[in-house]
């Protein structure tokens, strides 16, 4: 598919006359020099690619293929056999599977309410300020730069039911104390709050950049039509940033459905009665606690199939945005 265009752009000069039906053969015979030059050019071009190509081959493409193979294999006592669909059926019959999906969807849902809406709200507010924008932007992005072990352990201390800061704050405004990470009701919410604090900076900055691209006349026109603040947001701000909003929504869904580090560091992964076990944590458990790579790969395949749709939508949307 790419060869013809290459021949045309690469070594067009010398061989134009003799190109009727089988350009390849003719080119090689009639002009040795052109062929040699093309070969040399391609060799050096591929030489430049070699390092990256090998890394991709070993650490991306081969593992991709291996993921599919693993999902249908079983390894017991050192030898590997084909397992057909048994890994998948094992995964589907594991009660932890359904709980992990419930937890993951809860996390994704909560993270969309907080992690998707909050940065937009913050960006819209910051964009109105004529002072201190640089400082505020820096503040929001600050946690993104912290190593996760630092931010997560900080939140673990804040959540402590005894000396933790959060219960103290709740006490100040007269609300009842919470068990935070220790209770099945609040564990996942606590994880989402921490994750939002850690990660909202990137989205906020991207929204801010998008908001700065909205032409001011649109707001003026809306005002002439008598639109208030909320109507301006609804009829100008949101439509004008719709593409970025939908891209970020897809990205958030893809990212949050793969959540691992935050619950793993905050609650050890499971949480009270498995209330923070996510799908990726379950993959981790299958593979590294139970040495059951087949089931881990099968569960990974389920996640992949589910997220492939979102990924495809994302690629399509961002392709469209480039022109």
């Amino acid at each position: 598919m790419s060869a013809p265009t290459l021949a045309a752009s690469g070594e067009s000069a010398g061989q134009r006359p003799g190109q009727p039906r089988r350009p390849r053969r003719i080119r090689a015979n009639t002009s040795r020099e052109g062929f040699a030059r093309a070969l040399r050019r391609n060799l050096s071009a591929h030489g430049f690619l070699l390092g990256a190509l090998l890394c991709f081959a070993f650490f991306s493409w081969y593992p991709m293929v291996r993921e599919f193979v693993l999902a249908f294999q079983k390894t017991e006592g050192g030898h590997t056999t084909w397992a057909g669909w048994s890994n998948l059926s094992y995964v589907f019959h594991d009660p932890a599977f359904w709980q992990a999906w419930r937890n993951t969807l809860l996390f994704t849902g909560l993270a969309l309410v907080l992690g998707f809406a909050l940065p937009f709200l913050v960006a819209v507010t910051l964009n109105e300020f004529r002072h201190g924008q640089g400082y505020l932007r820096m503040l929001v992005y600050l946690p993104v730069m912290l190593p996760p072990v630092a931010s997560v352990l900080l939140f673990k201390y804040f959540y402590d039911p005894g000396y933790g800061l959060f219960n103290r704050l709740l006490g100040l405004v007269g609300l009842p104390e919470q068990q935070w990470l220790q209770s099945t009701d609040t564990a996942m919410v606590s994880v989402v709050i921490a994750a939002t604090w850690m990660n909202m900076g990137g989205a906020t900055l991207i929204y801010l950049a998008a908001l700065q691209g909205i032409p001011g006349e649109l707001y003026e026109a809306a005002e002439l039509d008598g639109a208030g603040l909320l109507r301006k947001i609804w009829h100008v701000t949101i439509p004008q940033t719709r593409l970025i909003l939908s891209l970020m929504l897809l990205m958030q869904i893809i990212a949050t459905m793969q959540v691992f580090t935050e619950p793993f560091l905050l609650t050890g992964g499971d949480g009270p009665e498995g209330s923070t076990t996510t799908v990726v944590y379950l993959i981790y458990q299958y593979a590294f606690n139970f040495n059951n790579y087949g089931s881990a790969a099968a569960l990974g395949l389920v996640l992949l199939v589910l997220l492939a749709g979102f990924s495809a939508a994302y690629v399509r949307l961002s392709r469209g945005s480039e022109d």
Partner: protein
Amino acid sequence: MTTRTLISPAQLGRTRGKVAYWTVFAAVMLIFTLVFLGPLYWMAANGLKTTKEFVQTPPTGFPTSLHPENYSHAWDVMDLSRLLLNTLWYAFGALAFQLVFDVAAAFSLSRLRPVFGKLILGMMLATLMIPATVLVVPQYLTVLDVPIFQRNLLNSPWVIWLPSVTNAFNIFLLKRFFDSIPRELLDAAAMDGASPVRTLWSIVLPVSRPILGVVSIFAVVGVWKDFLWPMLTLPDPGKQTLNVGIYSLASGVPENWLVAALGIASLPTLLIFLVFQRNIMSGLTAGGLKG
């Protein structure tokens, strides 16, 4: 005139508008400072407390007595110098590998246009569509016994460096930047008989400084922030990164020391951020959505 936004200048000019603006502004400044700087202050302050004061209720806002020696205890007990050096070694190695291999690949795909170049780029970009976590298990099995070479990369820096090259997003960013370099510049070099290496080195790289800066910062920060992969592939405590090392030692150390260690671990990336703030922000918004 600056571009106008949601709220009209006329509205802001009125007394009521002014009052509302400054009220909201003050509130946001206060809340943001508390929410985003507060935890960092808490970390610094609690790293200076005694263990007793640390767990005391109600907690003190400012330590009653300062104990900077917590930081040196944490440094010694958790062997932070080793963890720090390890992380630096992995981060800058990964940076070097990404700069050399990814820049060369992007240059080749953008300017030398080899046979199958489009297909190769497509296959690289396809890796962005596979959820990263799905690949962790087969990747782990691969580094246990790398095919053809039959090498076990566990506990070696290669296990961080080589997979870090497979950053399709970096290659894409670099390629787009190289694509935008004016043709005439490169044609002139070709006329003078410059080899590809020479063209890349003396013409392309000097004009690509902004994008190289962005890629470099993200490469270093990426290694600094990674957790799952180094936890799996560097089980030897002497070889671990800050994230993994502190995590595995966390339960055996007094709280005030641990918090002091967290402060030390956070400092490098915070400094990078403060110094390169502008590059990071522009890189984020320039390349943030074009994946």
